[in-house]
């Protein structure tokens, strides 16, 4: 049995530029966010990472926090902690401090409204023409081999969105979903050969030291014990999504970006 690990280390912090590129809110709101950042780094950074992308505690740089869907619930969590999940109430905080922390945590996971120069309507036509729906779902329509794009514009900025179809291999999402979670590369291409010679290519769904779960290119689910495989290649740096680099004009690229950036959740 052979385990190959083709791991270009360039992938390590791929998502960070998208975060850094966000424009800061203005005036009072910006000040509140700034104060919140200071508080966050002192109070929260040890578990959630200094930039909120997770350490022992979960990644907060996500568009939707399942335990804090609105600001009130986020405020309550910061105020009281989630003791049964291991989040302490760090200390009693003032209302102002809570406001500042809520403001900062919200900034972590939301990209600002699209600033793309493209035409979203024309982008939608390109999306249909390229057959993207054969792998992606928007508002319940399409196939599920690739990521659901229904609210992709809320979680990703234009730079990321552009790169995701020009060079998808460099833009595989990491740790944005609870499965496989913990910052693992999602939709990682894997190639498995079973001991009886069956050859399966697909994307990794989940993995542990003893087993791996994947979906093949026809979107069929497979589960293997690694000990039963003759070969298992995890193809870091590759993607099963084709690159559209050179297949669209610059204007079309921007139109598609505008279309994706406008996908901000179910209406």
């Amino acid at each position, binding site marked *: 049995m052979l385990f190959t690990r083709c791991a270009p280390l360039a992938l390590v912090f791929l998502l960070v530029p998208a975060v850094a590129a966000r424009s800061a809110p203005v005036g009072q709101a910006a000040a509140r966010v700034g104060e919140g950042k200071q508080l966050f780094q002192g109070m929260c950074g*040890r578990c959630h990472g200094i930039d909120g992308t997770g350490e022992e505690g979960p990644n907060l740089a996500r568009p939707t926090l399942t335990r804090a869907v609105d600001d009130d619930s986020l405020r309550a969590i910061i105020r009281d902690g989630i003791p049964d999940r*291991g989040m302490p109430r760090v200390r009693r905080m003032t209302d102002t401090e809570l406001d500042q922390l809520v403001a900062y945590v919200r900034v972590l996971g939301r990209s600002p409204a699209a600033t793309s120069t493209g035409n979203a309507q024309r982008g939608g036509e390109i999306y249909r023409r390229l057959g993207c729906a054969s792998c992606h779902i928007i508002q319940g329509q399409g196939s599920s081999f690739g990521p659901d794009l229904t609210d992709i514009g809320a979680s990703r900025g234009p730079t990321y969105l552009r790169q995701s179809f020009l060079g998808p291999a460099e833009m595989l999402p990491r*740790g944005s979903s609870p499965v496989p979670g913990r910052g693992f*590369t999602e939709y990682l291409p894997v190639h498995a050969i079973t001991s009886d010679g069956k050859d399966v290519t697909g994307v990794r769904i989940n993995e542990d030291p003893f087993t791996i779960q994947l979906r093949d290119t026809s979107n069929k689910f497979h589960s293997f014990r690694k000990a039963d495989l003759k070969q298992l290649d995890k193809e870091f740096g590759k993607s099963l999504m084709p690159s559209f680099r050179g297949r669209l004009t610059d204007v079309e690229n921007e139109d598609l970006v505008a279309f994706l950036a406008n996908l901000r959740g179910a209406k």
Partner: protein
Amino acid sequence: MLLHPLGALAQVPYPRIAAAETTPDDWLTYSGNYQAQRFSPLTQINRQNVAQLKPFWVYQVRRTGIVETSPIVADGVMYITEPPSTVTALDVRTGRPLWTWTPAIPADVIVIGSPPVNRGVAVLDDNVFVGTIHGHLIALDAKSGAVRWDVAVDDNKFGYYVTTAPLALDGKIVVGVSGAEAGIRGFLDAYDPKTGKRLWRSFTIPGPGEPGFGTWGGDSWKTGGGSSWLTGSYDPALNLIYWGTGNPGPDWNGDVRPGDNLYTCSLIAIDATTGRLKWHFQFTPHDTHDWDANEIPILFDAPINGRPRKLVAMANRNAFYYVLDRETGEFLVGTPYAKQTWADGLDAKGRPRVRPGLDPSVEGTLVFPNIQGASNWPSPSYSPQTKLFYQPAREMGTYFYKGESKYKPGDPFVAGGGRAVNGDDAWGAVRALEATTGKLKWEFKLLTPPWTGLLSTGGGLVFGGTEEGNFFALDADTGKPLWDLQLGAAVKANPMSFAVDGKQYVAIAAGYALYVFGLP
């Protein structure tokens, strides 16, 4: 029925704990014996039959939270803790609770530096001892859970709290504290098991006029951290307690505390009778990466260069494996057991040759190991049969950031933080090291840096677990996997083993449950 006069027949007297290896059916201390080897001499579950291991019973905790408990078993009763500071006694034959006790934790309790967890109890005579997140040490009657006494170890308003299992010695309960991230001044305490009266306190940070005080600039010693948050080991013959100490405060900005910052990130040897420091060894002088040295110090005897030595070994959070003479603290061996980028090895005295420019910075400095370290609280194990030191090793880096912190009582005092290199770029392994040299004998790779401790057994097995929820057994000689089972949630606890009615069992907590496994 005739009742024994009170106290006439103590259930778990000190001599019984000191001779733990002669009664392997029980598991009487956090790490199984005073040497902290987390080794069970039981042989019934072994290489030949471990593949048949099946769940025997499962206990679900009452209140969810991270279950890091390491059970204790005495005379058919298992004592566990549940988050945050609950103690429960279980019938080991059925998993049915016998009693459970929860302290009244104030709503404004301060827990800075770790989740609100508890790692286990100590037993001595007829009592069970537990530390709490509001900083108390409490003695409970082992039969009923009734409170015998309750003392505040120190003031939680300043961030002192307890997650560690106390250690029961002859006439003493030794307990450490957490709170370095709140700028406490750390210490190790001993209490009278009968009354709760404090017998001694040994500060991990020297005060004015004491040796080592000069390793702290200005008033920085007052908020210097050096907590004692994991259970140490004990040599009855030398009457010495071995205990690891944590990071200096604030964690990631060392400018405000110039000097080596003794005795943080050190192993201290304390006279059990007086509480006096016999010797110390500092692994990471002037730490700025949060590499606490609280990891379990394992005691064993072996020849080094042909001469029999009494040894203590630690796989430190800073990624080096150390062997010291436990009578004198003399440095004997130090070698990396995981990826590290911060030191060009160690000098003849064991002091690291620190590479310049790797302190935390405003823009972030990538260093291996990461903030949680190459090791952490999950226990290593030493097998006297294989003479191997088994270590759950964490292969992960962090971008370390430097910030500012003003000390305010009960507030975080950390001055920075980190951003982890996570996911597919981090991994882990169970590593078997030759105990006297640190040389790698074998490794079993894990997908994620582990938070599970290890148990080695007389049956030639090493039990461990994963963040993905696997619980597994490896061949102690080769590392070959022999059995595994998915427990449904991350395993963040230490395994242990016991026997009852002539049958051996292995226990481990995972998710919100405690699992006990046995042969069909």
